[in-house]
């Protein structure tokens, strides 16, 4: 997608660079929020959990800023072709990153409930970090694909969502078994189930980002491209 040529109107290039910068900053914050929320969860670190919740406002503010910038670019520059696709993708990706931030915030919110005073430490917590790592990796890879305009990398992120879904199914079964064996822990483990569900949703959103990156880079829709491949046409 990098055309290699600059726009005749230099301010247009500046707008596009600003758009890209905002997306990568937002993405960076969302990725960090997932890591921190999972770290807070593992350690029962409520201070860190509060920080995650506070920082989410930053992501929201950046989304609003990006939205204004996109409206301005469309109104003033009437972008075409790859520029148009990039601007539309940025708008949609920003909304998705904001949602990812919300899920991380939601995980952080559950930390005090899972580590309620006097409750015993739940072993099941230890099986979630690997899933959190995978979800955060998907977000990072999707955003790296955006920075690099890399359709192939975007398609790989798209494909990796299956692994996260498998993770979720496995954790779901493990947690249910755990609850059956330890009925006293049900309210805490129910929170853990939500954490797993949040991570699974983050993966879905990372997949959406990947789809937009693919569209921005190629002008084609990933779902249609894959359907085309499987039908051999």
């Amino acid at each position: 997608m990098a055309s290699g040529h600059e726009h005749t109107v230099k301010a247009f290039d500046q707008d596009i660079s600003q758009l890209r910068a905002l997306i990568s900053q937002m993405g960076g914050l969302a990725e960090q929020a997932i890591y921190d929320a999972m770290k807070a969860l593992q350690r029962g670190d409520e201070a860190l959990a509060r920080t995650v919740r506070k920082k989410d406002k930053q992501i929201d503010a950046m989304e609003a800023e990006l939205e204004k910038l996109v409206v301005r670019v469309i109104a003033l520059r009437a972008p075409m072709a790859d520029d148009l696709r990039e601007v539309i993708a940025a708008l949609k990706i920003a909304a998705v990153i904001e949602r990812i931030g919300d899920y991380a915030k939601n995980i952080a919110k559950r930390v005090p409930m899972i580590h309620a005073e006097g409750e015993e430490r739940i072993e099941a917590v230890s099986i979630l970090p690997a899933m959190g790592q995978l979800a955060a990796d998907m977000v990072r890879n999707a955003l790296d694909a955006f920075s690099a305009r890399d359709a192939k990398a975007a398609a790989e992120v798209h494909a990796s969502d299956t692994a996260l879904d498998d993770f979720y199914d496995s954790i779901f079964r493990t947690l249910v078994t755990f609850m059956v064996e330890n009925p006293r822990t049900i309210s805490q483990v129910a929170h853990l189930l939500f954490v797993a569900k949040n991570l699974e949703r983050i993966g879905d959103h990372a997949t959406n980002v990947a789809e937009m990156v693919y569209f921005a880079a190629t002008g084609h829709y990933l779902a249609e491209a894959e359907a085309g491949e499987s039908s051999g046409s």
Partner: protein
Amino acid sequence: MTPASPAPHKMSARGVSVFYGQKQAVKDVSIDVDMDKVTAFIGPSGCGKSTFLRTFNRMNDTIASARVTGEITLDGADIYAADMDVVQLRARVGMVFQKPNPFPKSIFENVAYGPRIHGLASSKSDLEGIVERSLKRAGLWEEVKDRLSDSGTALSGGQQQRLCIARAIAVDPEVILMDEPASALDPIATAKIEELIHELRGRYAIVIVTHNMQQAARVSQRTAFFHLGQLVEYGETDNLFTAPREERTKDYITGRYG
């Protein structure tokens, strides 16, 4: 280069080149134009799009140094054939220019002139019917019906351009060529012309040259991008402006050209 179409093409160009003396302005261009479709020609100044457009009704014949090679057909008939009646050709393939150029005559006479010399009207009332119908199709009737004897040149620029379109329509053409028909008009007059193109689409094959890419995107179903005399890309307008195949097309439409 041409999107598939079930009907035979209204006009087809095959290997068309245009020379002005030694200089080649259009290089080996092949393209098809269909009924019910608006085809837009875009490209930077001097890319040959207007020159190429003018080969469709032999307007280049009027330029002494211009030479056209290749073949252009209208309903399969070679329009550069020796027995082609050029006056008849230009009635079938009408043209609207960048600057409105009404005759210094009344509004009525501007529209009536063509049908009269082509013998399309058998009586005065017949002629009046053609003038009214043409002005209506050009979206001008309501504005001028009470002052048909006023001079055509007294109208506003946008009205003059619609008068010129009415004049082109009056001889019942099959193809209408428009060479930047709205570039000298304000945004409202431009919007009226674009709306008009939209309404005329079902009746004629329309080819429009425009510098305004948004306009090309809005009014056309197919777009051809010209650069340095070559046809770089020709395709469905929707695709060309969202996902052009050629790097040169992309650079031009995104404002990275030059």
